[in-house]
């Protein structure tokens, strides 16, 4: 399934830079921290078409990143979705880390943990909430349409994903097929959430 690959890779990419950023925002104090947090939380709800348009201009042949020839490739969609969900992971993961009892920090330190080990202990404490932010981000990525359409171009076998197929089939009047695809999409989103809930109980 192209959708799972594209959005899964997007989520992995986003984690790569979002989780370290969230750790810095959640566990350290620095000048401009509030500004940085404000920046990320402002972009949580960014309209996918607006972001798609900006990235389209960047990726298109005449754009600054045009030389890479990324437009209308699956990688372009992944990159676009990764940018889209970065604010979600950063904001929610940082809040999760911040909400860990500050005394746990002292506890880890008084038991001989180094700064690094202390931070790891805090991340472990918040791991479920951090995972939740990643899952929410994945769901947002797999369910969005604007970026996939504008950066992918909905090319059959190449950049066609679930959401773009649904849009296309509906436009062609193939409502039954659209519905089936929509149910598959819902199924994916639902089973990811279900898996997370099972994990929480364990």
């Amino acid at each position, binding site marked *: 399934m192209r959708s799972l690959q594209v959005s899964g890779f997007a989520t992995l990419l986003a984690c790569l830079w979002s989780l370290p950023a969230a750790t810095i925002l959640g566990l350290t104090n620095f000048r401009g921290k509030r500004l940085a947090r404000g920046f990320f939380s402002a972009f949580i709800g960014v309209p996918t078409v607006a972001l798609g348009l900006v990235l389209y201009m960047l990726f298109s042949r005449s754009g600054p990143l045009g030389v890479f020839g990324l437009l209308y490739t699956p990688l372009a969609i992944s990159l676009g979705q990764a940018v889209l969900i970065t604010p979600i992971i950063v904001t929610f993961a940082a809040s999760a880390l911040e909400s860990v*009892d500050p*005394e*746990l920090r*002292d*506890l880890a*330190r*008084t*038991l*001989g*943990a180094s700064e690094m080990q202390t931070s790891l202990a805090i991340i472990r404490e918040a791991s479920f909430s951090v995972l939740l932010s990643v899952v929410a981000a994945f769901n947002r990525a797999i369910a969005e349409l604007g970026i996939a359409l504008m950066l992918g171009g909905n090319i059959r076998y190449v950049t066609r994903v679930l959401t773009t197929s649904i849009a296309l089939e509906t436009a062609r009047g193939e409502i039954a097929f659209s519905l089936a695809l929509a149910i598959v999409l819902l199924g994916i989103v639902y089973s990811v959430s279900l898996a997370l809930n099972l994990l929480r109980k364990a």
Partner: protein
Amino acid sequence: MMMASFLETRELQMRYGPTTALAGANLQIEKGETLALVGPSGSGKTTLLRILAGLQSPTSGEALVEGRREDAAGLRRIASMVFQRTVMFNTTVYGNVSFGLHTKGLAKREIEEEVMRALRKVGLQGFEKRKARKLSGGEQQRVSLARALAVRPALLLLDEPTANLDPANASAIEHVVSNLGEEANTVVLATHRMDQAERLADRVAVLNEGRLVQVGDAKELFRRPSGFLASFGQLRNVFHGSVALSKEGLAVITLGGGVRIEAASNRTGKVSVFVRPEDIIVSKTPIVSSARNVLRGRIVKVEDQDGLVALAVDVGQELAAVVTKQSFVEMGLNLGLEVFLAFKASSVEVV
């Protein structure tokens, strides 16, 4: 040259903006001793412990370990602290107790052995697989203690380890602390309970408003309590008098104000006596019991004290007694009421 103390602090100061939490603490702690920090809340006990634990750096002043200056990181290497409010990692008891051992990079087998040993010490063997946060408050505090003991700190710091605990768990903790042995033989214990300090500590340091007002061995402090110590909540009922009659281990002591009490003591001459408010039984009619002392007086002060009611009763001298809220209500006690105070001769401490 004198041997350097195990731990020495020089002019430790801690200021938070305009407030001063610690105003120049000089303290010497010898290897192997248990030192109690006594003082009312807000006196700087926790701040001093946190500095000794290396969890915060003082505004000024320094700490020396065996004569060498150590910064916070150096102190963290030798000390481990148990906090007043229990905090548990969200994992099993085993995970909690083994945390410090993992940071040391010990082998799995060794970690297992040390965890079991620590849990045995606090009487929680068999609890390894339990979720730490599902345990009762008292059990959690015992896990905290085991967790600190597991790393075998050269200096163990305890911040009010029995506050908020039921008597059974509190005495379990006290039992562990008084039988530490090799795990951690140097202990600094913050408490606001003078009786606990007396039971557990070799020496007592009295803190008030960020200053060490008195340091000495527990018995000595009882004998000559400074004005502050005597007025400080937990050390009430200290009286001075002289033994009027002493026979077969029982002394009749006159305290002035027409008060005579009997104490289990062979002392003669001038003495100081101390009765724990908790050991005094309050009744509305004289009761027949084995208590050698029954005094009649009027309630002159009623004070709420963490779930208990502290009474001051004028029997010629003012005596403090404590009753539970329930008893206070059920007995219909109130200001001005006449009551009888009973306590055993063996409850009277004579120094």
